[in-house]
């Protein structure tokens, strides 16, 4: 059952001009960044590790943005296009429905990661960081995106509207991204430090900094950044579960 929902979404969401365009834009962005990092006089003065960290942040940022936009409509479209009623009249478990959709969103992340891989390999050539770069982007990106998608699904069941879900999800993503724009002085502020420690996007960037700039390659050395991501995943799962339960109790069709 999960497979059929996943395949439907792959056909509906990924084999479309929309997804192809997204992946094309992502690859153009990665090409442009890599080219600048490798050829620009000032940027090429950066230490290679700094350059890799910058690229990793761009890959994660682009992936978060694309997956957030896609995931905001993957569930809500069933309500807006009135296909949910027919779907749930069939012997389909809500759990299978959610897992199928979740897999489809993670597939989009996988495609972005595949598109990013050549850029990672080229820019990290000669640094011995290629494997760590790929591994940590895959691990941290997967955890962060999994949590974000679960939160988006939770919001989708509450709103049942793509526009509202997308707006709320982008606001959440923006809130998590803001600390990256903080100056060093601001980052030393207690509030900024606490927020930075619980902020999943910040933890991903800090962990990549730890791996790519400070050569702290072991999981243990990055555990302090990984466990907030795991907590973020649990939080996302709880929100999604509560929201899905509420949805099931209220009924597939909401008249209020």
């Amino acid at each position, binding site marked *: *059952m999960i497979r*059929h929902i996943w395949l*439907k979404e792959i*056909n*509906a969401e990924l084999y*479309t001009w929309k997804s192809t365009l997204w992946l094309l834009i992502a690859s153009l962005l990665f090409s442009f960044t890599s080219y600048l990092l490798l050829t620009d006089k000032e940027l090429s003065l950066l230490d290679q590790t700094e350059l890799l960290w910058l690229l990793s942040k761009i890959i994660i940022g682009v992936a978060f943005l694309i997956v957030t936009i896609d995931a905001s409509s993957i569930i809500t479209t*069933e309500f807006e*296009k*009135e*296909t*949910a*009623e*027919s*779907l*749930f*009249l*069939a*012997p*389909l*478990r809500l759990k299978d429905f959610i897992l199928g959709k979740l897999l489809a969103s993670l597939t989009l992340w996988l495609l972005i990661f595949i598109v990013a891989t050549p850029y990672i390999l080229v820019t990290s050539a000669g640094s011995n960081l290629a494997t760590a770069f790929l591994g940590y982007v895959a691990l941290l990106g997967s955890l962060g995106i999994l949590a974000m998608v679960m939160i988006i699904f939770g919001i989708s069941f509450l709103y049942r509207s793509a526009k509202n879900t997308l707006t709320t999800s982008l606001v959440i993503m923006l809130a998590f991204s803001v600390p990256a724009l903080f100056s060093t002085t601001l980052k030393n502020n207690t509030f900024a430090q606490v927020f930075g420690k619980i902020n999943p996007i910040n933890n991903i960037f800090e962990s990549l900094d730890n791996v790519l700039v400070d050569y702290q390659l072991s999981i243990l050395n990055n555990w302090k950044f990984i466990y907030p991501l795991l907590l973020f995943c649990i939080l996302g799962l709880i929100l999604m579960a509560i929201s899905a339960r509420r949805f099931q*109790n209220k*009924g*597939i*069709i909401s*008249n*209020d």
Partner: protein
Amino acid sequence: MSEIISIKNLSKSYNQTKAVNNLSLTIDRGEFFGFLGPNGAGKTTTIRMLTGIIKPDQGDIIINGLSQDKKEEISHIIGVIPESRGFYGWMTAFEYLQFFANIYGIKGKEQSDMIASLLSQVGLLNNNIMGMRINAYSRGMKQRLGLARSLINKPEILFLDEPTLGLDPQGQEDIQNLLKKLNQEGVTIFLSSHLLHEVSSLCSKIAIIHKGSLIAEGKIDELRQKTGLKETYHIKIEGSIKPIQESKMMSHIDKIKDNGITSDFTFQDSLENTNRLLDILREKNIRILEFRSEGETLTDIFLNLTLEA
């Protein structure tokens, strides 16, 4: 006949509004059941509760011996054309039915045979149509596809919410004929419709719901008796109407058109008195050229009952 759907004291409110109020119904296996009511009467809410799409605030629903918490088992024995007519527009009809067949666990040759048979039954098995995306379908074609989807699991009970809405007269007749055939094959049909002629021509039993409450239930004749409404017949005889003018039946005769060669008139009374009139015509050797029911009686019953309520 055994009971296949049993509803007891079913109620559902949206905010302060009672959409369905203490509704109780029983439907027998193999019955063609018509569910009538004006807009906003609670028909769709009732169907959604019966099919497990929304939960009732109170009341019990038993479908083929299964209580409502057995939603998955129930979904295997019911087929539904819901009010919301959403389709995956980027799919072809075949892909669409294939997707639902997969959800029902129908696979392989059985699946492709079933899909071809259903598309043929609803008139969509055509090479030009088969390659089209559903987005390009007309409303009527989508309606036919919806019916095919509702039959994919060979349901024992079919819930239909306005199944011929948006269809042209030929399309309506095709669907009605298919429904008649399914009913003859033993499928119990629960038909919600505002097309009174459709309900009266298809259904063996009807229920009328108004403002969420059941106001009448039974066979059309029973409802007619209940409302005191009489059947109207159109009769055409050879010759003049004069020979029967002395009979007591004349008070029930109306709209007389007598040209001396043939006479047309309408007769409105009970079936018993209609038979007596026919006997009188036979006794007087008057040839009956035409005898038909006016067929709008359900409209009268419906209006009578809903206005009363």
